[in-house]
Structures are given as structure tokens and as C-alpha cells.
């Protein structure tokens, strides 16, 4: 059990990195607290797996430190870090039975045999591997193999942390949900730090208390699913989290707010004050489709937009509309209609986010 601190950590696969683009992990500081259930969410190739391998010790970071309970572990092997990791594709020892596979990490640590038996049976029970416990592991289905892989991580109750590298990729959808619940239960039961890598936001938010969103080798935001949804720190988070993602519009400054394609959007006084101090011209505003307001008719502050199409998703509708040159989306109740291909939309100030150089401009009190 440990608190894992990544201190000024960076990693490059090339021996002599010349610029930031050579880094798989850009310099970061991050703390995974003891006992947390975390998800590391990001698109393929953003450095998730690299980061995971650095934490477990399969990979030595080129810069910075990995601290377990404030002790530097950069030089320690995974064995000495006492860490468990489950890989994307199942790894099983196919000359052994399922039982021996699950017992392997314990026997390697010279755990007494009665305890091995008790522990293996406990984990087999949780993962429902009992019917095949004494079969050769090589004849299992892909699902079962991955359960064995996961089981080997779970039998060790003294580990610093368990790391999961997209462990449910090969699992059937109906089993996925069940196994994720199981992991959550195990987490609650044993209070082990778990870091779960995934590119699926649903998977991340059902498993984790807090999600770290990675993009381009950096953790761009670390927060609860709700925080990621309501105030994305970075345009990438806005776009990546949520279905569909946040509407983002490139804008330029104007008196009292910002403007795009001739449409003027007023900002709060506080944001305007901030904006006056910022030299950059890379400005964007963002609003989630869920927060775009659709009026039944023209109002003072609503823009008239042309509706391109409407998707009916059963319990709600997604309206895609055009405002100037921008294509935006809004969520609408199931029983509402948009007459005549015209929609009157407004952007409530409290949900309107301002991004400078892709990062959120924070407002203090709200």
C-alpha cells in the first residue's frame, strides 16, 4: 500500500531528445493517493501505457523521480516495488493449470501453501473461475484467460498498487460490465490503490473516483467525472469527454465579450477582465451540447440557427445546427420538435467556458 508520487517525471524513447515532440511523457507532477480508484483516460498513443510501465518499473523514466511513500524507487524492479499489473492482452503460463497460474505470484514470494490455497480459492470465487480451476490454462477461452491474468494481480493483497492496462479490451461486452463491478468491489474490500488505463470514458467513469485525462504525453486534467464534464480544463478534455463532445468555437475579442462570424457572445465581467490581461489571440469558447438552450421562438439574446439534422437517440435528441460557419450540437428533450429547420439558441453564461491557448480561463467564485 503506498502513495505514488511522480515528481518532475518525463520520458523520451530517444536517447537524445531535441524537442518536446520527442517526449512520450512530458514533464509532469502527479500524486496517486493510497487507496484511490483512478482511471487514466486518453486516446491511443497519448502515453498512457508508457506512464503505467514507468509506475510499475518495467520502464525506467529518462527524467524525474517515482516516489512510493516518499521513497525513490526509480532503480527498483517491479518485484521490489511490489506492484501488480494486468496487461491489455492476456498473458498466461500455458504449461500450468489455472490454479497454478493464480498461485504463481504467491509461490514466487514463498507464501506458505495453506495461505496460497486460501487466497487462490478466494480470487477464483470472485472471478468465477472455479469450474476451470484445475484445467490447463492453455485451453481456456480468451475471456477466461484474461480473468486468470487479472486474478494473478488480485491474489496479492499486500501490493503497493494494482495497475490495469486496458484489461477488458478482449472481453465480451456483457462480461465487461460485470468484471468492472467486480474490480470496484475488490477495491472497496481491500482498499488497494488501483490505476486503470482506458480510452473509454464510460469505463473510466464507472470504475474510478477520479480520472486523469492524458493528451500528448501530459495529464491535462485530474478530477471527478463531474468536474471533467462541467469544467474541462483543456479543449481536449471538453471534446473527448461527453457524447457528443463540447462545442468549441474559435473567437476573437470585441467590446464586452468575444465574437465569431458576426455573432457576438457576451462574457461575464470577470472573464472580460481576465481577457484584457492576456496577450494571446488563440481564443476559443466552449459549451456542452447539454447546456445549449433552445428556445421555441425568437428572444432577445438567442441566435437564429439553421438546423442541419436531428438524431433521435431514444431518450433524447441531438440537434446539429449551423451558426455562421460553425457546426454545433445541442441536446434536446425527446418530445420536443424544431419547427421549420430554424432553432433559436442561446449560450447561458454560467456554462460558457473560455479557453486561451487551449487551456481554460478559470473563474474564481461561482
Amino acid at each position, binding site marked *: 500500500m503506498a502513495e505514488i508520487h511522480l515528481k518532475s517525471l518525463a520520458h523520451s524513447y530517444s536517447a537524445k531528445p531535441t524537442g518536446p515532440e520527442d517526449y512520450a511523457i512530458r514533464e509532469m507532477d502527479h500524486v496517486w493517493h493510497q487507496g484511490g480508484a483512478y482511471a487514466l483516460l486518453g486516446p491511443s498513443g497519448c502515453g498512457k501505457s508508457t506512464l503505467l510501465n514507468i509506475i510499475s518499473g518495467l520502464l525506467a523514466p529518462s527524467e524525474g523521480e517515482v516516489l512510493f511513500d516518499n521513497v525513490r524507487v526509480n532503480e527498483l524492479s517491479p518485484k521490489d516495488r511490489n506492484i501488480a499489473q494486468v496487461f491489455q*492482452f492476456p*498473458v498466461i*503460463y500455458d*504449461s500450468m493449470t489455472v490454479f497454478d497460474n493464480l498461485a504463481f505470484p504467491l509461490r514466487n514470494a514463498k507464501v506458505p501453501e495453506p495461505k496460497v490455497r486460501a487466497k487462490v480459492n478466494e480470487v477464483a470465487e470472485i472471478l468465477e473461475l472455479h469450474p476451470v480451476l484445475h484445467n490447463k490454462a492453455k485451453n481456456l477461452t480468451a475471456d477466461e484467460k484474461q480473468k486468470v491474468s487479472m486474478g494473478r*494481480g488480485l491474489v496479492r493483497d499486500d501490493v503497493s498498487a494494482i495497475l490495469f492496462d486496458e484489461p477488458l479490451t478482449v472481453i465480451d461486452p456483457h462480461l465487461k460490465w460485470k468484471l468492472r463491478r467486480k474490480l470496484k468491489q475488490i477495491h472497496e474490500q481491500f482498499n488497494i490503490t488501483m490505476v486503470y488505463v482506458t480510452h473509454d470514458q464510460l469505463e473510466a467513469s464507472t470504475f474510478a473516483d477520479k480520472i486523469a485525462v492524458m493528451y500528448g504525453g501530459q495529464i491535462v486534467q485530474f478530477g471527478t467525472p463531474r468536474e471533467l464534464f462541467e469544467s474541462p480544463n483543456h479543449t481536449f478534455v471538453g471534446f473527448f469527454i461527453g457524447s457528443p463532445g463540447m462545442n468549441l468555437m474559435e473567437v476573437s475579442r470585441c467590446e464586452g465579450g468575444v465574437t465569431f462570424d458576426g455573432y457576438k457572445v457576451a462574457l461575464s465581467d470577470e472573464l472580460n477582465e481576465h481577457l484584457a490581461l492576456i496577450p494571446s489571440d488563440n481564443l476559443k469558447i466552449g459549451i456542452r451540447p447539454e447546456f445549449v438552450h433552445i428556445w421555441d421562438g425568437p428572444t432577445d439574446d438567442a441566435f437564429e440557427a439553421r438546423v442541419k439534422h436531428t438524431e433521435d437517440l431514444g431518450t433524447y435528441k441531438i440537434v446539429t445546427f449551423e451558426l455562421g460557419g460553425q457546426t454545433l450540437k445541442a441536446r434536446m428533450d425527446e418530445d420536443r420538435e424544431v419547427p421549420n429547420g430554424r432553432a433559436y439558441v442561446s449560450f447561458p453564461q454560467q456554462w460558457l467556458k473560455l479557453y486561451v491557448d487551449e487551456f481554460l480561463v478559470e473563474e474564481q467564485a461561482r
Partner: protein
Amino acid sequence: MIIKTENNKAWWLVLPVFLLVAFSAVIPLMTVVNYSVQDIFDQNNAYFVGVEWYREVLRDPRLHDSLLRQFIYSFSVLAIEIPLGIGVALMMPTQGRMGSLCLILLAIPLLIPWNVVGTIWQIFGRADIGLFGWALNAMGIDYNYASNTADAWATVLLMDVWHWTSLVALLCYSGLRAIPEAFYQAAEIDRASKWAVFRYIQLPRLKSVLVIGILLRFMDSFMIYTEPFVLTGGGPGNSTTFLSQTLTKMAIGQFDLGPAAAFSLIYFLIVLLVSWLFFTTITYMDKAK
């Protein structure tokens, strides 16, 4: 209703294969079978003797001795070359120039013809002009492969190890390279010792190349002729006279074609039987639950 047209012309297409198999296998083998059941004095005087030659051959003490020697030799070769080959493969660098250099060095002995290998070791082992023999004697070890049975055996075995361990090592090396990195990572996470990694990851995944390696080395060493013949000529005495040498003496030296033919067939059946035993045992071990 199915109309089946019979086209006997199709048989002509199979003919080349028939001829090839006939001339390469069936006819030579049947000639030997033919010799083994007859006593031939000259072209017009051949008498059918049934299994007489087989009976005689099986009772011949010379053959018993060389068969025993042959088994001891083949099993010694396997006992040394298989573990050594695995060991060499495990120690080889996996990439870079050193890796390529090792591959080339290992391949060299495999490219040398048998009688040249025999000659190399015949000279290498001589106490007067051979580096190996001279060095051993200089160290105070009384070594002479031409007069001492133990020395002769040691040299014949060493020569085979030198010549053929590379084959096992190269086979194992390719087998090891085929193991995905994820297995080593998982083993590291599972705190496996080096021995456990070898026992539970590397060895099981080397099984198929080892089956090939064991069969090849068994068959080759069981039929060995040229190298010991060039090195020791079967001596001192008959101490390094292996089966093929006994057979050659019988067939060509004494021109006893009948017994030699019977012997050849028995020899062939032994190789076949032992190879089958190896193969079945190893495949069975794999299937056992």
C-alpha cells in the same frame, strides 16, 4: 443421378511421383529386403534362407557390442548437446552486432564437411603436432586418443559437441526470439525468479524446436560414420566402432551381403522406433492434463 466419368489418363499425371518414390525409396529398400532373405553365391546360385540371416545377426556379439556403444554414444551426445545448446541460446545477445557475430560464429561448425571435421580433430588432438593434445600433455595429463579408450571416447564426443551444439543453440535461439515481450513483463510483475522464467515460460515455449533438435541429433548421431572413422578408425580395438562402421565392414570388407542386408533393415527399424518413442513421449507430455 451422379454420372461418374472414368478418365484413366489422369493416372499418367501421377506417374512421375510414382517413379520418383520407386527409384528413391521402394526399389533400393526392396533390393535390401531381397538380399536379406537369400544366400547368394553367384548370379545363378541364390538360395532362399528365410529369416536365417536375421537370426544370425541378432545373435552376433560384435553387433551387440556396437549397438550398446551406439546407444551410449547417442544418449551422451543428447545429454550434452541439448542442455548446452539451450544454455548457449539463453546467453546469446538478443540484438546488435554482437548478436549477429554470435550467429555467424555458431553457424561455422555446421558448414564444415564431416570428413574435414574428423581430420581437424585428428590433427588437433595429436600429442606431437596438435594444439589440443599437446596442451593437455603439457599440463601433465596423459592424453592419447589413439591408444587410450577413454581418451578416444572423450575426443569423439567432444568432436560431435563441437560440430553440432550450434544446431541446437540456433534452433533454441529462434524459439526464444519468438516469445513475446509481454510474457517476460508479466513474469517480472509476478516476481518470478530467473529459474521460474526459464521453467515456466522459456522451456514450455521451446518444446517444439527441442523436439526437432532432439530428433535430428538422435538420428544423426545414431547413424554417425565419417567423423569417428577418420579420427580413430574405430579403435583402439573396437572401442569406438559404432553400428554403421560394423555394417560397412560386414558389407564391403567381408562382402557378407545377406547378413549385412538383414542388419541394415534392423538398423533402420531401430532408428525409426526410437525416433517414434521420442516424438510420442514429448507430444504426449504436452497433451496430458
